């Protein structure tokens, strides 16, 4: 039994799902940090008024 294709499929799935997950979490953190900055600016403007 060789089944090289099955091993490649399994390893591609493992690293695919881990990379997609890591990417989505990073993107969600980055979007929220942008939101924090936006809210800070809004509150700063509110203070000046």
């Amino acid at each position, binding site marked *: 039994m*060789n089944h090289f294709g*099955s*091993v490649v499929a399994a390893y591609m*799935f493992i690293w695919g*799902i881990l990379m997609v*997950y890591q990417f989505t979490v990073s993107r969600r*953190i980055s979007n*929220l940090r942008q939101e924090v900055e936006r809210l800070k600016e809004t*509150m700063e403007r*509110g203070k000046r008024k």
Partner: protein
Amino acid sequence: MQALSSIGVAGLIGFAIYGALIWAPTEKTMGFLQRIFYFHAASGEVMILAFCAAFIGNVGYLWRRKLEWDWLATAGVEVGLIFNTISLVTGPIWAKPAWGIWWDWSDARLTSTFVLWILYIGYVVLRRLIENPERRAVVSSVFGVFAFLDVPLVYFSIWWWRTQHPPPLITKPGGLAPDMLKVFFFTMGALTALMAILIRQRYKLEVVRHTVAEMQIEAEYRNDGGGL
């Protein structure tokens, strides 16, 4: 420090892949296919560790009522689900050529692992349905404690019932060649380090989300003229 630990874990994972695909000897019966085992079995073990972290978070929240525990639970569940999915997908990829079937519903290990996946998907969906953070934390913590009851069933199923799933070759004398054992334990260590980094990152996401929610409340309060 964070970048350094990420680089360290990436290095460990690189060595684990090298060990599993090249360094470990080829198994006599299954040949190259057996190399799926290192990451499949290690993912199953790491999944249990992540769900244990989630359980600690759930119990911690019910006991202390501090949102930090709830954030740990959410992070543990999400990361545990990733490793749960890996073990559920790589198992059938190995099973089809080895057993001739993708899946066996009468197998206690396979079915209880699938039930575990469904339960924790339910946990994630439940959290999205509740907006109030405190209420969400209470309901999901109770549900999380209930879902965790399946974890010992998954772990001990191969001892308690006769299953198609192989018994643990690691603890069995003469089960795995010493070099294969070394690669397995190294892979488990590398995936555990990766799990810790992913949980830390997911926890950070909850911290930032909480900061945004608090700032939104403050901004709304100010827009309303400070409650006057």
